[in-house]
């Protein structure tokens, strides 16, 4: 045990108040500081926080960005999301691996670099997205990958890499009330205090704001249930774990001071009577963290956060940023709370719901970043901010990626049709659109009349476009693999089902598919939909089967019309035997 290593871990333990709930934060810092979490540090953390050592290992095994074996000094992840693939991420990664002489996922023998893949990095409109030691770099084409290789070989510290690589500009293409909003330094708070909790809730109800993460639960009801639930502490959590492939609008909102996410959280805190809020920020958005911290500090300094907010005696609310460590399922609110409590992100048994039994068992409002931003606008300007009259249905941020001229963020009236959306972003030769992420709705090009709304084609913000050059089976396979990788593994149907689906998709893609495989996929799909513990398992089999329904050609091209075809590969199965016989002969 070196004293140097000791110092790092001790420093983190102090920084996080030796709070066992902060164990994940401590582990993440150790990972970033030392490229893995050392066995000796695990011992120290376990002892200091009075946690069993296995619990620490369990966390490291659960979260994708934590490791207990050394990674390279430059730990690089390419986004494996389909839109990054389409922008050439695989070729870039291959080029980087070749230049550095490494295999994916395995550091070179000098421990210089690891090149690996991860689920969506949220840079979909500016891919291929890459994380280097936790920091995002966009547009990593083969050229940029080669430049990166040169910098890595020269041992150039990340601080000395070209600055412009780290500048993530948000492609905001169409603005509505939210993206046009100006910074409200407390005006929403002042008005919320003036209105009182009943007044704020009534305005949210009048506006008809519903959860923007995709579930669409009425925001006023969530806040109202929470404030009326029992006595004692309450919490506000901003769900900034934007992991749905193809979604990046929360990234832009958090990057935009005028969008008033923090002000919206503060309004929520005042309304429900909470004194503490958390922003659960996904690991991939580390690059936003410092700016957010500064913004929080400025608001504390000017009395918009902390004790006696805006001079109102007894109104106290502060916000802490807590980081994720690589798990899609933590975007589900109860899994997010588990993670916030320093545990593996397994969705809880519901009911009870977090709104009555949330963080540490107390009533908790968990809302999406966008919901808080709109809530701030409504609190400041009244329901008219979100909708002028009953004919309107409010607004929604849509992240558009894939095959179109202008990928980026569009603020659209709820009810905008798919056709209008395609036109807005300049999509031509459209073959398919995936709305709402991998588990969402797959639309064929002719379904332009479908509208983006909770009642028709629902989306938390993801809108991916595929033109005719794309193989839809590839797309479906990417989504199926994504779910198999991100399943938390808690319940049988999802844990085994996602893997079975991924295996069967691979079998079909390899040209070994037959009618029985489709039948079996349909059977597994039904089981997963009916019996899975949470939404991930319930939707994981949807993409491959809807692709089969809507784009049967993509399957037929690789399937013979036979009842049964084995995946069994005799040549591969006897390779080892052949090798031994050759060595012996």
């Amino acid at each position, binding site marked *: 045990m070196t004293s140097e290593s000791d110092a790092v871990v001790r420093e983190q333990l102090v920084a996080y108040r030796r709070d066992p709930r902060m164990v994940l934060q401590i582990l993440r810092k150790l990972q970033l500081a030392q490229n893995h979490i050392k066995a000796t540090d695990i011992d120290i953390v376990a002892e200091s926080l009075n946690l*069993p*050592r*296995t*619990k620490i*290992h*369990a966390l490291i*095994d*659960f979260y994708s960005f934590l490791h207990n074996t050394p990674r390279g000094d430059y730990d690089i992840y390419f986004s494996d999301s389909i839109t990054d693939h389409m922008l050439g991420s695989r070729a870039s990664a291959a080029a980087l691996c070749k230049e550095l002489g490494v295999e994916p996922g395995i550091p070179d023998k000098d421990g210089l670099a690891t090149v690996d893949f991860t689920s969506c990095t949220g840079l979909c409109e500016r891919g291929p997205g890459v994380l280097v030691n936790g920091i995002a770099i966009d547009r990593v084409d083969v050229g940029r990958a080669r430049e990166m290789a040169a910098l890595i070989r020269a041992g150039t510290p990340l601080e000395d890499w070209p600055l412009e690589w780290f500048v993530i500009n948000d492609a905001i293409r169409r603005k509505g009330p939210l993206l046009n909003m100006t910074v409200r330094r407390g005006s929403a708070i002042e008005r919320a205090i003036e209105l009182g909790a009943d007044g704020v809730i009534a305005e949210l109800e009048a506006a008809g704001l519903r959860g923007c993460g995709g579930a669409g639960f009425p925001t006023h009801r969530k806040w109202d249930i929470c404030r009326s639930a029992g006595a004692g502490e309450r919490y506000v959590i901003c769900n900034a774990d934007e992991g749905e492939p193809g979604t990046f609008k929360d990234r832009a909102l958090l990057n935009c001071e005028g969008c008033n996410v923090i002000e919206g959280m503060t309004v929520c805190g005042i309304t429900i009577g909470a004194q503490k809020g958390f922003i659960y920020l996904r690991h991939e958005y580390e690059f936003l963290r410092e700016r957010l911290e500064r913004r929080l500090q400025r608001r504390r300094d000017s009395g918009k956060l902390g004790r006696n907010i805006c001079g109102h005696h007894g109104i106290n609310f502060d916000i802490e940023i807590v980081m994720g460590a690589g*798990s899609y399922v933590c975007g589900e609110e109860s899994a997010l709370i588990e993670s916030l409590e320093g545990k*593996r992100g397994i969705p809880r*048994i519901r009911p009870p719901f977090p709104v009555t039994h949330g963080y540490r068992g107390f009533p908790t409002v968990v809302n999406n970043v966008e919901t808080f931003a709109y809530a701030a606008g409504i609190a400041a300007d009244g329901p008219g901010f979100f909708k002028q009259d009953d004919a309107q249905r409010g607004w929604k941020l849509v992240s558009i990626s894939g095959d179109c001229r202008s990928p980026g963020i569009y603020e659209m009236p709820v009810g905008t049709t798919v056709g209008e959306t395609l036109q807005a972003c300049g999509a031509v030769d459209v073959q398919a659109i995936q709305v709402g992420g991998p588990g969402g709705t797959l639309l064929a090009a002719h379904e332009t009349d479908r509208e983006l709304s909770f009642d028709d084609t629902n989306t938390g913000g993801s809108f991916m476009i595929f033109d005719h050059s794309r193989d839809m089976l590839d797309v479906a396979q990417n989504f199926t693999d994504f779910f*198999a*990788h*991100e*399943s*938390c*593994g*808690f*319940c*049988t*149907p999802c*844990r*085994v*089902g*996602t*893997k*079975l689906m991924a*295996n069967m998709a691979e079998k079909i893609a390899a040209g070994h598919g037959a009618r*029985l495989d489709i039948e*079996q996929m349909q*059977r*597994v799909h*039904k*089981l997963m939909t*009916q*019996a*899975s*513990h949470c939404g991930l398992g319930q939707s994981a089999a949807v993409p491959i089967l809807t692709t089969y329904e809507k784009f049967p050609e993509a399957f037929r091209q690789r399937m013979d019309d036979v*009842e*049964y075809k*084995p*995946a*069994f590969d*005799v040549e*591969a*199965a*006897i*390779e*080892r*035997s*052949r090798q*031994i*016989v050759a060595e*012996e*002969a």
Partner: protein
Amino acid sequence: MTGRIRIDGQSIPFAQGQTVMQAAEDAGVAIPHLCYHPDYEANGSCKMCTCKIDGRQVSSCTTPAADGMVVVSNTEELNSERRALAQMLFIEGNHHCPSCEHSGNCVLQDQAYKLGMTALIFPNFTAGRETDASHPDILLNRDRCIYCELCVRASRDTDGKDLFCITGRSHNKGLAINSDTGLLKDSGLSVDDAAANVCPVGCIIKKRQAFTKPIGQRDYDKRQVHRNKISPSTLPELAKEPGEKISVATCSLAGCFGCHMSFLDIDERIVELVDHIEFDRSPINDIKTCSAEVDIGLVEGGVCNTENIETLREFRRSCKVLIAVGACAMSGGVPALRNSVDVRELLEESYIDGVGVENPQIPTDDELPHILENVSPIHEVVKVDFFLPGCPPPADAFWQILNDIVEGRAPDLPYDLTYYD
């Protein structure tokens, strides 16, 4: 709240705070389950107890009972989902009943019997998880873990030791031991601990006690209740002229011929049988190749080498109906235990280091079949129409399914003839 709920039409009472599962158990109504245990807080992970409650499918072990609730449990729709869950658990781990010490006392096995699971249709994941044999009295065979978390709960809540922990995620989950070395021997687990006694499958078992009660006399070997009704599948048309016999071919691949021996245990009934069937290729008559058109093929044993593949493909080509007979054909069985061992190690153990080997050398003759990296069930190589489980299947099971076929019915194995061991 107290009151009454209705399960499959039967009205039962529930007490304050009870879940649907607890109320059902108290009333003697069986809802299939694996991870539920009356002594522990519900986990809700196995999903076996999924019922349709007031129209929605939810776990009955985590759903609080409410007055007037309508629960639907014992339907073919739900049982077929539960059967698929059992099939998933069987292929996720290595559940080879014939070589498992816990066979006959295994809750997973019992549930699968009752649900009428006679086939393993999904390709095996060939789990290769680490076995921990370090403890003097207790063995941890992780390949058999079904992640019910009963040991986790028992160790934490009853023993107060908190020795077990689920790690990882997705299909890469694991069961870890909380000790300095990560080994069971250093954990302080004792044979009397609840955690050492609660495992529903053969994952945590006690050493030297595996066969104190012989197979055949174990908890679930007695068949007291009837299994749930399953919809029979259909038998392909065999189109016989009146009086024409059904032809049957049999073979053994990577097996022990035990299934054939069991078949012969139908004894004098074979005389009655040959009035209706004639044997084609079979070790019984020593005919070495199949005729062009055989009605029924019975295949014993899994696929372990290239010769097996050839034989199996010949059977499939020749036989209208192919039946996988016995545990090895269905899951790889006992020979599949070698799947976690490298082929070179296997060959060296057999031909070089083995006891009594003279002239030690690994055979390299071109004429010899190559051995495959894994022993596979036959349905991963050819299409299989029906499955006859057991190690071996009882003689009566052979008698039953051949009679079914002779009479033009799809084979439908009754509960009291379904055995995996």
